[in-house]
């Protein structure tokens, strides 16, 4: 079973809750879960789960390399490229690696077979055992590289679950392609929000993404501080189950800042999160 923690808005507590859920499951179940940090732009889960990242693999995209000796500068490559990543200027064919999506179209369609593909590194995937026996894997986008999605896609394939192993995926904020790739193939979305207009606005979007992808979802309200009727109204109108409420407490904020999970700050959440898991599973 694959659980994906998402939010729309950043900083609502995705990583804290994902790491806490992983620790809670690890205490109750064998094998302990597999944790995938899919926020490859800003990966933080390792700060809470302390994995040994002893295994690494570069993630590269295949980009075109033009053999000028064979190239007739016919311009077919530039014509088929939807990303303007290859251009013919007079007697020179130029490749712009940062615009290339690695689709292979130019290589396949070059009438002179003058294009081969060479790997261009964009990041890395890493894995190893974390605390409490959790299997941990993450992707890291190289600074200056624009595309997160190929790394997330690679990570999901590179770190498969064992039979019967629960998978917990932590995702980037937002609602566009990296979030969608992180959610793809999940069985359940845990949408973490906070009771403010920002939190609600972005929860709405995250719920829509889940719906378009046909994945069932539930809500976790973090930093609850009195009631926020607009959020409650939204959840009940949309039949979204509020699975957990975490009150605002300065001691939690301070603990999280120091790299502690919820279950380390308040051990009773171990049981609460386990019960939440059972409720979703059944």
């Amino acid at each position, binding site marked *: 079973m694959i659980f994906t923690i998402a939010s*729309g*808005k*950043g*900083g*609502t507590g995705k*990583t804290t809750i994902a790491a806490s859920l992983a620790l809670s499951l690890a205490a109750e179940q064998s094998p302990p879960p597999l944790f995938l940090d899919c*926020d*490859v*732009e*800003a990966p*933080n889960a390792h*700060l809470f789960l302390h994995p040994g990242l002893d295994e690494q693999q570069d993630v590269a995209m295949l980009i075109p390399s033009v053999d000028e000796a064979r190239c007739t500068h016919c311009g077919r490559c530039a014509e*088929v490229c*939807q*990303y303007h990543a290859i251009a013919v200027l007079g007697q020179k064919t130029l490749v712009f690696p940062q615009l290339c*999506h*690695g*689709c*292979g*179209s130019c290589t*396949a*369609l070059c009438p002179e077979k003058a294009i081969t593909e060479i790997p261009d590194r964009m990041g890395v995937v890493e894995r190893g055992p974390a605390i409490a026996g959790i299997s941990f894997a993450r992707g890291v*986008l190289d*600074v*200056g*590289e*624009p*595309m*997160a999605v190929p790394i997330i896609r690679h990570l999901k394939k590179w770190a498969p679950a064992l039979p019967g192993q629960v998978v917990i995926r932590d995702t*980037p*904020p*937002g*609602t*566009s*392609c*990296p*979030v*969608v790739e992180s959610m*793809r193939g999940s069985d359940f979305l845990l949408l973490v929000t906070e009771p*403010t*207009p*920002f939190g609600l*606005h*972005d929860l709405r*979007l*995250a719920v*829509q*993404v889940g719906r*378009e*992808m046909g994945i069932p979802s539930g809500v976790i309200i973090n930093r609850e*501080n009195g009631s*926020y009727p607009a959020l409650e109204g939204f959840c009940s109108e949309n039949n979204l189950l509020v699975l957990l409420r975490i009150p605002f407490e*300065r001691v939690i*904020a*301070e603990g*999280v*800042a*120091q*790299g502690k999970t919820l279950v380390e700050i308040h051990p009773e959440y171990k049981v609460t999160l386990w019960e939440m898991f059972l409720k979703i599973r059944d």
Partner: protein
Amino acid sequence: MKQLVILSGKGGTGKTSVAAAFAHLAHDGPSPIQAVLADVDVDAANLELVLCPERIETHDFTGGSVAVIDQECCDGCGICEQVCRFDAIQSTMDGYRVDPIACDGCAACVYQCPEEAIHMQPQTAGQWYRSESCYGPLYHADLFPAQENSGKLVTLVKQNARLLALDNNSHMVIVDGPPGIGCPVISAAAGADMVLVVTEPSSAGIHDMERVLQLARHFRLPTLVCINKADIYPAGSDQILNYCDEHQIEVVGSIPFDEMVTRAIINGEPVTVYQPAAPASLAISQIWLEVISRMHLELKP
């Protein structure tokens, strides 16, 4: 005319709260500065929620295209599925189908289908708006959920804000950026005269601040840092100061943790309007003065 781009790496550190207060301070502060505002966190645009804007113009944003298979012409050879590197084409009971969410719009299948049974269909991926806010013109956008090309929409919103600022002889564009360091952030940061990184003294906040500062250095952008919720973990704040000191990046101020920031959001106002005397408001006002002075913006008397 100068562009200030507010970034953070980690989400939820307070970019939008700072941007909203800056919009107010530019407009009504002790030394008024004419600013155009741009919210380029197009995935989850929140600035409008605290600037009471009235929409003047709405435009469709055509993002990429997705492949569509004409079932009448398809002979089921499966070449499209083989050439697709995005796992977007699957064989189903009713023939080959394109998953529009997975499709990257590369058109490899279109060009390689022997029956010419596939075409590309442009997608309306979102909308962008010009609004009149309480604190000046605001450009913003909504990328429809699960759409691609957010970098392209970021550039579009920013360019329109820039053009208006040039037309109006405005002093600056204040850009509220997205989290992360990938494509939308690179688009947001391009051409910035100053990047302000809003960070927080948590282990995650510091980790991601370092990544966004590396990005700014990579693109050689002048950068300032401010620390939000600075007192929540003082040891973390010290770590930020040390890191910035080592890398010769100026820290222009610290904002204390202040519940009024959240209350202001709930009230739909910048914190400097909602509670001008709140500790956070005073700190942000001071940071604003530091930022405009570092940007050498001429102050009107």
